């Protein structure tokens, strides 16, 4: 290794996030109690700076640092999603942390570190890097889930997330160790080359692919590895739940696509059917169980499982069209789900007390603006035409049909119809039930408004004018 392989521009967004994260962390004890929220804005500025530095990064395509860091369109698009998620989450949590008297700016550091981990995952061309990125993301998220230290529910959520997360990390590691033994490399391209030659022990490779698949399925919460999801999502502080339901999920899928479509395409006959079953099971379980959830956070948890199922359908298509549809869907899903969780943050009031669907009764007459925005997110999550959710689902089912996955597409459409029931029940509560709450203590400060505007505008834009973003995802899918 010599100086010539160094390329700062290729890692600039990750670098910016890490440095700002460290600065926020070290500055925290030196800053007075009144000025702590300024650190939140500093973190927000950090994500914006990282987003700007995507431009020099995109001009440095190729493989860097001994081929373990790859910059391509796929990477740039995913980084954009991750940074958007981080920015919206910071905006949502600023008011939340003040309200809950949890104003510790370490939260923003952790969020930035987690985002840096996600960027590493998307850019890694090497399983060691994937592991490191995954762990940076996971460890920061464990702490964020337990951020409300004095609350037993938050503790429990963090503990469950931690135990299952590190359990699945161990499986992931074992899979990497085996693939290293079988092919003599942890570089994705080198693995792909080795697998094309015939001298490989195919049973060892299949076992390692299975272990890696299981571990990543845990991370993205698809059935049958989803059981931790509702508990963890319910107990975590609401903005963190919003982050967890989109961030680690998108990063996990980024790795799934990268690893399986780059390294393991030659043994697709061995994992293709597994993805098929995972996708079908996830869509059915997620949507059916969501119907009976009275708690809106649990309902959205099952809904997030269901949405992971739709992305898994795009994965099962194993085509460039499928990857493109999945990328589009991840962006659309991130925007609408973060918006929905921002609304849940607002309505739940202090200590996340009011989180039942029935607590939304009469919101339409008392606070029509908020109700309209929440309706938009619910309709988009359900997939009503004109919203981002519809466009995303449409592209995914089209990709599935092109890959002759007719049954998956049918299951997808049927479960989407089921999902209308629980999304619309929120809207029914808001507009057709008598209010038993004045919603007079619902405060809406600047940063939260900003977060809602970004998510709502994005949801509408992707729904009404999807072509430009779709062109982008199409080039991104070619990697």
């Amino acid at each position, binding site marked *: *290794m010599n100086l010539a392989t160094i390329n700062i521009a290729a890692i600039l967004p990750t670098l910016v996030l890490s440095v700002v994260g460290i600065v926020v962390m070290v500055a925290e004890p*030196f800053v007075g109690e009144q000025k702590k929220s300024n650190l939140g804005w500093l973190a927000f500025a950090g994500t914006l700076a990282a987003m700007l530095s995507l431009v020099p990064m995109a001009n440095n395509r190729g493989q860097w640092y001994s081929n373990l860091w790859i910059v391509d369109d796929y990477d740039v698009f995913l980084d954009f999603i991750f940074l958007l998620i981080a920015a919206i989450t910071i905006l949502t949590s600023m008011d939340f942390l003040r309200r809950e008297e949890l104003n510790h700016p370490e939260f923003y550091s952790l969020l930035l570190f987690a985002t840096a981990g996600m960027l590493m995952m998307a850019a890694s061309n090497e399983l060691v890097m994937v592991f490191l990125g995954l762990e940076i993301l996971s460890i920061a998220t464990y702490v964020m889930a337990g951020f409300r230290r004095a609350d037993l529910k938050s503790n429990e959520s963090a503990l469950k997330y931690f135990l299952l997360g590190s359990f699945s990390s161990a499986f992931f590691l074992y899979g990497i160790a085996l693939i290293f033994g079988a092919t003599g490399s942890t570089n994705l391209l080198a693995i792909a080359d080795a697998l094309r030659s015939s001298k490989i022990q195919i049973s060892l490779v299949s076992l390692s692919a299975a272990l890696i698949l299981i571990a990543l399925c845990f991370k993205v919460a698809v059935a049958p590895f989803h059981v931790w999801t509702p508990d963890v999502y319910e107990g975590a502080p609401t903005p963190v739940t919003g982050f967890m339901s989109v961030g680690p999920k998108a990063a996990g899928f980024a790795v799934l696509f990268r690893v399986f479509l780059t390294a393991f395409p030659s043994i697709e006959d061995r994992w293709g059917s597994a993805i098929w079953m995972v996708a079908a099971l996830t869509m059915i379980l997620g949507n059916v169980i969501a119907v009976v959830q009275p708690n809106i956070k649990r309902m959205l948890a099952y809904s997030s499982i269901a949405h992971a199922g739709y992305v898994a359908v795009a994965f099962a298509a194993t085509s460039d069209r499928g990857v493109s549809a999945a990328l589009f869907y991840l962006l659309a899903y991130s925007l609408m789900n973060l918006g929905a969780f921002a609304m849940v943050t607002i309505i739940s009031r202090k200590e996340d007390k009011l989180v039942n669907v029935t607590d939304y009764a009469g919101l339409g007459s008392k606070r029509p603006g908020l109700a309209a925005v929440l309706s938009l997110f619910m309709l988009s999550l359900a997939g009503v035409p004109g919203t981002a959710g519809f466009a995303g689902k449409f592209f995914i089912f089209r990709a599935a049909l092109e890959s002759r996955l007719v049954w998956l597409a049918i299951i997808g459409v049927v479960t989407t119809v089921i999902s209308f029931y629980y999304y619309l029940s929120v809207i029914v509560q808001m507009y057709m039930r008598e209010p038993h709450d004045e919603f007079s203590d619902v405060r809406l400060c600047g940063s939260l408004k900003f977060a809602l505007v970004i998510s709502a505008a994005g949801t509408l834009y992707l729904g009404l004018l999807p072509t430009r973003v779709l062109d982008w995802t199409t080039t991104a899918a070619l990697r």
Partner: protein
Amino acid sequence: MLETWVPVLIFFILVAGFGTVSLVLSYAFGPKKPDARKLSPYECGMRPIGSARERFSVKFYLVAMLFLLFDIEAVFLFPWAVVYRDLKLFGFFEMLLFIVVILAGYIYAWKKGALEWER
């Protein structure tokens, strides 16, 4: 292959034999005058108070955890030291950067008062 380990085996037998023999001999021939003081758990003149099975203070945990983290980070110095000459000045500054990042964590822990025993 296995023959090379025979001296080690002989050594093990010798060690075990010596230990056993000296224990048995001192038990058989040594004088025994037990009294209550001598039979107490720690023969240091102090009367033991309370049970030894007490909970440790959480403070120990915090210090131990900080030690563990900073200690483990040092593991990266070993492979770095192995290839230090090949890396030349670049390696030096790279490691300096790494240490600075750890230092940032240290400053944070310090300023937060995690290193203070009495709070």
